[in-house]
């Protein structure tokens, strides 16, 4: 076996020579190939029909690389597609930046690429350009990904926190906290009776259904790090209005809730990768909810609360027992409790 036949990433895979060419052709293009990517030019040429372009980027450093319900590849595609989708945009093309650590098994690399391809297919978007760097062993966690995405904005999209008004309804498309707990369980080697699975999913298809139907969405945001709490606090800060949510209306999987209780986490602050918070006028809420529930990624959608013109502008939770408490965005990394 020569060094070029190794089953692990070596520095030469990033050296710009024949080994790098083979890595790109035999692994990356093999997994993600499409007419634009296959040209392997310095940039991809996109046809643009005019109108505003939405452009975003995000980097992914999750550990472990694979967790129940997903992996770093699926996250990288879903995260960027969702960042576009919550702006009311349809993803058109993605770039994929790969930073891989010397020593990573090529089989792992290929599994991640296959996952990128599957998620991109699910989202209806292509990876059209990219970049690969190999870093010295010990300088990374195996694999980091960056995805940038461009999208065309839907003609019916007009989301702006300034349009939020008192009385508006707050919806979420399904159960909260599943992704954060799934990653935490994989990271800490925790086994739960009922496994908690990440919710990572591209939401652009579901959001397009709402926009196509003419639902007047005032504001949308995907509830990633910082969880539902983070988005609700953003809504309060940007609109100047109070948010009131009701605990008994929150969609939560019993297994996720039990795991969060065990670890001492508040599910409101736990990360999601397939959940969007939607603010609509109260009269639009039921129709929006029905449309959401008709989509695979929104079958557990719920109306969880409302905007109110009370001051000071706070996010408040009415607990299942009828109590009230303030909800704030988490401060830094959440850590499991001790006992």
């Amino acid at each position, binding site marked *: 076996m020569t060094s070029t036949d190794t089953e692990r990433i070596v520095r030469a895979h990033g050296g710009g020579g024949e080994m790098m060419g083979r890595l790109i052709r035999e692994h990356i293009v093999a997994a993600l190939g499409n007419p634009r990517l296959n040209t392997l030019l310095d940039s991809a040429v996109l046809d643009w029909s005019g109108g505003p372009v939405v452009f975003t980027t995000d980097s992914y450093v999750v550990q472990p690389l694979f967790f129940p319900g997903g992996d770093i590849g699926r996250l990288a595609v879903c995260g960027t597609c969702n960042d576009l989708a919550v702006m009311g945009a349809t993803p058109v093309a993605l770039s994929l930046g790969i930073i891989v650590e010397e020593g990573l098994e090529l089989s792992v690399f290929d599994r991640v690429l296959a996952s990128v391809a599957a998620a991109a297919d699910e989202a209806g978007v292509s990876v059209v350009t990219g970049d690969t760097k190999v870093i010295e062993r010990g300088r990374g966690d195996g694999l980091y990904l960056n995805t940038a995405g461009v999208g065309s904005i839907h003609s019916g999209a007009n989301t702006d926190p300034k349009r939020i008004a008192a009385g508006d309804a707050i919806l979420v498309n399904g159960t909260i906290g599943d992704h954060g707990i799934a990653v935490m369980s994989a990271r*800490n*080697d*925790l086994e739960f009776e009922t496994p908690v699975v990440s919710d990572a999913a591209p939401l652009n298809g579901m959001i397009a259904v709402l926009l196509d139907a003419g639902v007047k969405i005032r504001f949308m945001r995907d509830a990633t790090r910082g969880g539902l709490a983070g988005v609700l606090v953003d809504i309060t800060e940007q609109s100047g209005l109070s948010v009131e949510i009701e605990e*008994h209306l929150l969609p939560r999987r019993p297994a996720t809730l039990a795991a969060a*209780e065990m670890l*001492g986490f*508040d599910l409101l602050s736990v990360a999601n990768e397939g959940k969007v918070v939607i603010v609509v006028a109260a009269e639009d809420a039921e129709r929006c909810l029905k449309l959401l529930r008709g989509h695979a990624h929104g079958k557990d959608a719920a109306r969880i609360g409302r905007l109110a013109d*009370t001051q*000071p502008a*706070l996010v*408040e*939770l*009415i*607990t*299942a*027992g*009828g*109590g*009230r*408490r*303030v909800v*704030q965005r988490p*401060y*830094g990394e*959440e*850590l*499991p*409790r*001790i*006992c």
Partner: protein
Amino acid sequence: MNRQVEQLAATLNCEADRLRHRVVFMEVCGTHTVSIFRHGLRAMLPASVGLVSGPGCPVCVTAQRHIDAAIELSRQEGVVIATYGDMIRVPGRSGSLEKQRGLGADVRVVQSTRSALELARRNPDREVVFIAVGFETTAPATAVAVLDACRDGVTNFSILPAHKLVVPAMVALLASEDVRLDGFLCPGHVSVVIGAQAYRPVVKRFNMPCVVAGFEPANILAGLIALARQAADGEARLENVYSAVVTDEGNRVACTLLDEVFEPVDTVWRALGSIPDSGLALRPKYARFDALTRFEIVPGEDEDHPACRCGEVITGRTTPDQCALFGADCTPLTPFGPCMVSSEGTCSAWYKYERHGATKGRKGNRQ
């Protein structure tokens, strides 16, 4: 709304109506504190029932000298520190374990002692030191790790012993002249291990109502009802409203493990000082697993920030909002004391759930 919780809140209000004066109960345990805040129970309490937090947050009561010792250990060549989560943020005299990690120390957050021991097994060329904090809930797992390491001949594993026992701290609190309480809401998790009977000396010696409760809103309210009823009737009894989980005698296996590996010693608690027989030291036959001995580290004296009132908070002498640092200089991002660091800390709970003080519909009944 949860009908059961609603009915229990109504019952608590009825019992409170019978009280001849305002009473103050202490929830000893940090998990109780957070549960009370998170479920919005404070807003449901009658005005005549006050709650104060006690010394039951493992991070909050760990003396600064133990944090400093952990930091000193993290600076040793070849040492891997394995610790439960919140401990990495608690400031010692020269920063925190988190800061040390930023400076290059190998500090790993683990979820169990099993993971810490596994780290030692996988890194035979490194010395793994587990920061052994917590009460009777976490101490049996530490005992198991020591026994496993002993049995398997793992020589690169040791612990920084900083476990504490709850009942001696409750006794020390009641023995303080300036602490006035009308009852204890006793911790559920600790009681699983030590058993409800462990609080009987507290009831007898101090004529103090003690009620063991779990962490669900309904169970906490049931515990408060039992305490309010005793207070109204002028009685002091031991009750257990968490009997589905907590037995009278506790978990004998866990207690036997503790007894095999540890022996009670006087230890220093943050703010409470040295309390007789309130800590756990390794018995001589396991002394080689003591990191302080192995690395010849002598914990120094505590030098807490002069304006920080964490000590008064965890003894129920004051509330976080009475501290000049609270919410201004001291926040979860810039904590001065452990009560703002720990996810179970009272200051942290106040800041997260109560900071604005203007929560609508609140009856405002905390002492």
